[in-house]
Structure formats: C-alpha cells, structure tokens
C-alpha cells in the first residue's frame, strides 16, 4: 500500500465483501462441509488477498465460486483418507434434514444440475449471479437451469411411483 488512505479504502471495500460471511458459511454448510465456518473464513481471507479480483458491485458469486473450490479441496482431502470411491466433484448438499423424497430426487441429478438449482433455490441468486458463480454465460446457465428443473420434476414424479425407483447417486456426482 502506498498510503494509509489507500489501505483504509481497501479495508472499507473488504468490509462490504466480509458482510457476506454468513451467506458463505450457509453455502458451505448446505453443501455438506464438515467445517463450514473454516471454509467461509478461508474464502474471506482469499478475498482479502485477491481483493482486486472481487467484483465490488456484487461479490457474492465470486465468494460462492471460491467457497466451492475450497469445498472441492476439502472433499479431495477427505477422499484420500476414506476408502476408494469416485472422483471428487462439486460437493453434494447436506441433505439429511430434507424430506426423503426430495433428498433422493436431488441426489439423482448430476452435480452440475444440482448446483444450478441450489444456487438459485437456496442461495437465492439471480440467474446472472449464479452464472458468474459457475463461470458460465447467463444464457448457458439458463439452459442448464431449465434442464435441471425438468429433471428434478421428473425425478420427483418417479419418486411417487415405487415400482420405478430412480438410481440414487450416493456420491452426489
């Protein structure tokens, strides 16, 4: 920093970013993190170190994208100590409090479809924000969201037909 004024300016800017700590913590928790508070704190530390990259007008998508990368790292670390399983992917949500029907329907979706749905439904992002969080164009995200909605609806309908159970993706991938 070349001056105290610039330092204070950066701190003020970061304070706005830091105001999303609760949202990032909830995001990590919803994605099944074992240390949601730690993930959120690390995301904020990264935001401070890379403040020039954080969009000052809407930092939340950037924070979610950073938290998602940290969740992937957390999942990779845990997979090294756990028995061999599939490749780590975008973490599955913490679904144990959901009603079982919705739980199974969500798990039946691909990780990408599930993340698109949850960013909008649970993180309350607008499609353009969610697109930024996933590094997609708004158009590509809308297409993905539309397909994910259809697949979730289809999965829920199949849930109501016990004879045609969907195959559950236990790993959330």
């Amino acid at each position, binding site marked *: 920093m070349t001056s105290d004024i*610039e*330092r204070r300016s950066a701190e003020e800017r970061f*304070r706005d970013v830091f105001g999303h700590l609760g949202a990032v913590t909830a995001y990590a928790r919803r994605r099944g993190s074992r240390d949601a508070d730690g993930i959120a704190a690390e995301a904020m530390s990264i935001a401070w*170190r890379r403040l020039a990259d954080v969009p000052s007008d809407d930092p939340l998508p950037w924070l979610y994208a950073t938290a998602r990368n940290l969740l992937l790292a957390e999942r990779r670390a845990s997979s090294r100590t756990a028995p061999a399983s599939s490749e780590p992917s975008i973490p599955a949500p913490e679904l144990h409090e959901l009603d079982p029907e919705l739980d199974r329907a969500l798990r039946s979706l691909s990780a990408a479809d599930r993340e698109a749905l949850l960013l909008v439904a649970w993180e309350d992002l607008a499609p353009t924000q969610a697109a930024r969080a996933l590094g997609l164009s708004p158009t590509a995200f809308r297409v993905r969201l539309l397909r994910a909605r259809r697949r*979730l609806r289809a999965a829920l309908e199949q849930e109501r037909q016990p004879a045609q159970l969907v195959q559950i993706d236990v790993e959330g991938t």
Partner: protein
Amino acid sequence: MTDHTLNRLRGANPFREGTAVDAEALFDRILLGAPDRRLDRAPRRRRRRMLLVAIAIVVCGLLASGAYGVSGLFDHIIHGPTVKAEYVAAQKQLTMPPGYEWPPLNWPANSVTSRGAGGAFAVSNDQDDWECYWVDAIHSGDIAAQRRAHAALDDLMANHIVIAPAGSPEDWTPPQSSRTPTLAFADDGGYQYKQRMYAEAAAGKPQLLEQSCRANGPASHG
C-alpha cells in the same frame, strides 16, 4: 422461479444464513494479512491513464497547430478568382497612359499561382502601355507626353518593380505585394536592361524602347 417443484426445493432450504464464529475478530485477523498488491497499482494505472490523456491532448494540440501551420505554408497559393481580384485592385493604384485601357486578364479559374500575381500582371501591362505611349509621343514629337511617360516608367521601376534576391525560387513573391502591386524581375540583368532602355530613349535613341513596345505592347503596336 415460479415452478412448484423449485418452490418446494426453496422451502426445503436446510440452513439459514449465520455463522458461529466471532465475525469481528475474524475480520481483524484477516486484515493482519497482506492485502492485494494489485490495489496499489490501480491508482498508478489511473495516474498513467491521466498522463496518457494529457499527452493525447498535447499531441492533438500540436497536430492542430501543425495543421494550421501547414495550411499557412500554402497561404501564398491563390486561384483564378483571387488573381483577377488582385488585378482589378491594382488598377486603382496604377495609372494607365491617356487613351489606353486595362486589358482583360484571362486567367483560368482552376489555375493557381502565387499571391500578388494579379498585381504583377497589372504592373507589367501598365509598363508595356507606358512604353508604347512613350514611343507614340516620340514619333509624334510630343515632348510633354515623352516626359510624362518617362516619369511614369521611372515611378514603376522605383515603386512597383523589384529584383528578386539572388538564388530565390521562381515563385518568389515580394513581401509588399499584398499591399502594393509589384512585379518581380529575376536577378538576370532584365531590370538593368529596362533602365538602359529608358535612359537611351530619353537620350534620343528609342530603338530598344520601340522593340520592347512591339514585343510586349498592345496588339495595335505589334
């Protein structure tokens, strides 16, 4: 999102926002770390941008003044209408011999020449006509007319005819030509030839003057 399925999903959000950590303590702890160095460069980039804008303004100013200067370089070039206007204006400062009229100047409108050329044409025509007037006066024995012609030609030589400086370009224009009709002679002895011609005519030897009148004067003397 109006879809019933997604409304159901939204309603099933398992966690609301919130954190168990001491946010203020975390905030202070994070600020102990080094901030993004690139933020330092942002003001520099702004300053650099401002400097570039300033340089661009200066360059534009120089270009504009340069363009003005370049246009000034061609300010001495005039077209046909201006040549004719100069020719007409010069007639108010020069005197035609009695009985002579200013010949029309046939200068193409789309042709260019140096500023002052219209005045130079007028001086040249005036000189030719005064020479012929002098020849006529000699032939008719009109002493007063001879003196008037000699005086008029001396005046032209002194005040409206100059010798271009040695080595000057062909389109050299006398500085005073914009105010006073002026004819420039090349520095090749032509001016001195005219002086000798007038001196000899005044001394009773008009051969050179007659020759000049026949060569340059109105068609009636050719």
